[in-house]
């Protein structure tokens, strides 16, 4: 039987992380999660990857976590994926490894590293990651990686804490020699649920920051993308020509399907809902079951929308993180509506 083709799988190799980022979307950090089953095992990583490659023809692997460099024998696990001819990207917080490991990874053909730089100001960055000195560490990692001839992508999570100086941050990142930046608005989930008030931007703040980022990207020739699907009725890509926007694919196989160490498969790394387990369920059935089908539905809020086919209601995994169904529109609509109403009430008073 031929294997199912999956262009990309994100592998959450461990749930353990040395940081406590205020915005962390990892579902196991959500305030409602009461069970404790953090994972970190080399043997299990290999077992799970082996199973994955036996049922699916995977093109590209993204290693994430937690912090992947906290994973037991991480570089060896990546070598296994490379030996199976997978191209590899690593998403890391950039504070946990050393030159030797980076060099080894580049030598075996890891093509891209994604690291956070939330601000040009170290105290702002450190406040977002909750670790003093994390800014300095990530800059040191960038210095090392820059010498290794590998693609570096800077990730900026846009929140109330760092949005007012986004243009300066983009310039700072460019000066580091990085010309590819992911500008991701804070997307509620995980630990971010508890910190929503502190982090969530108002509609106006969000649009102002994106305007500023877009203009800077055009002037400075920086490639900026917005990779958290955002409702078009909140951020219309036509208004931000300097930023390329990505949207959720309706086709589950073109999603960044996310695999946990124990074989659980989820729709994407933001979604907390387990579609099935590759050790116990047939992949074909997982990709066509009722939970997966929910994503094909149109949220009530979007029924008459002309742009639904592109937007698909924003990030509906964030709805799942809020214990709503995947058929509910992105909860940012709800938050911004509440903020707007509060502003109007204040105005009237």
């Amino acid at each position: 039987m031929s294997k199912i083709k999956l262009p990309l799988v994100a592998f959450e190799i461990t749930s353990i992380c040395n940081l406590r980022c205020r915005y962390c979307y990892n579902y196991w950090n959500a305030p409602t999660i009461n069970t404790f089953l953090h994972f970190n095992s080399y043997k299990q990583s290999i077992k799970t990857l082996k199973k994955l490659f036996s049922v699916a023809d995977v093109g590209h692997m993204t290693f994430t976590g937690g912090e992947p460099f906290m994973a037991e024998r991480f570089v060896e696990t990546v070598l296994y994926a490379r030996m199976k001819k997978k191209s590899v990207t690593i998403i890391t917080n950039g504070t946990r490894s050393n030159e030797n490991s980076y060099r080894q990874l580049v030598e075996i053909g890891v093509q891209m590293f994604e690291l956070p730089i939330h601000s040009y100001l170290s105290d702002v960055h450190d406040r977002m990651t909750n670790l003093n000195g994390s800014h300095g560490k990530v800059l040191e990692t960038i210095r090392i990686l820059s010498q290794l001839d590998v693609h570096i992508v800077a990730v900026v999570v846009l929140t109330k804490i760092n949005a007012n100086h986004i243009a300066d941050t983009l310039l700072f990142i460019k000066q580091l020699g990085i010309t590819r930046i992911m500008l991701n608005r804070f997307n509620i989930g995980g630990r971010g649920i508890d910190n929503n008030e502190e982090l969530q931007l108002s509609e106006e703040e969000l649009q102002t920051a994106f305007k500023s980022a877009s203009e800077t990207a055009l002037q400075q020739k920086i490639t900026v993308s917005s990779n958290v699907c955002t409702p078009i009725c909140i951020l219309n890509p036509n208004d931000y020509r300097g930023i390329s926007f990505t949207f959720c694919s309706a086709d589950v196989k073109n999603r960044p399907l996310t695999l946990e160490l124990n074989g659980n498969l989820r729709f994407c790394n933001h979604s907390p809902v387990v579609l099935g387990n590759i050790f116990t369920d047939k992949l074909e059935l997982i990709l066509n079951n009722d939970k997966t089908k929910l994503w094909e539905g149109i949220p009530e809020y979007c029924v008459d929308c002309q742009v639904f086919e592109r937007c698909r209601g924003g990030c509906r995994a964030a709805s799942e993180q809020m214990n709503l169904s995947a058929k509910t529109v992105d909860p940012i609509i709800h938050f911004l509506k509440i903020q707007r109403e509060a502003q109007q009430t204040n105005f009237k008073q």
Partner: protein
Amino acid sequence: MKKEFYLSFFVFGLTILFSGICVAVYLSKGKSAFWISKKMKIGALILSFTVLSSGGCTPMCYDSSEPTEYINLDSIENNTLNIDLSTNNKVTGTISERISNEFSFALGNISSDTIFYQSDIFATDGEFDEITETFALTIPETKNGDFILRFYNTNQNLQADHYPIAEIPIKIVHSRIADVQN
């Protein structure tokens, strides 16, 4: 044609070498930095050649069917372990799919990513020798605050060379003000 033949032969040789190194890594339980670095070097070399010679063989030293160790704690709330040191300093839980016969924990500062206390964990029945074991550990006197508790499948002296197998945020409070050691 001749070139391809020699190349395949060379890659085959490297693969044998790689398998040998994998055995050395396995025997060192993945702890030998020397053998791991050799494994990565030869792995990189094979990869650079297999791009040229299509269908190069994939070394098979990764097979594994052993289970992994899981730790479950008895009293978790909101994904955090809450400890009131005025009334209780014991944490209890279960280790399932146990392989190691030594376990330990470390207590650290979240904000600085530093460890300030390490200790061994003891099986309730005195020995870690069954698939599933219950255990207890004692939290030392610590000021109020948010910390991180990490678990290792080794004794406390070897933690630096090992990765944690689990971790959980821990909130320490003293409900009786007189007990606070700030």
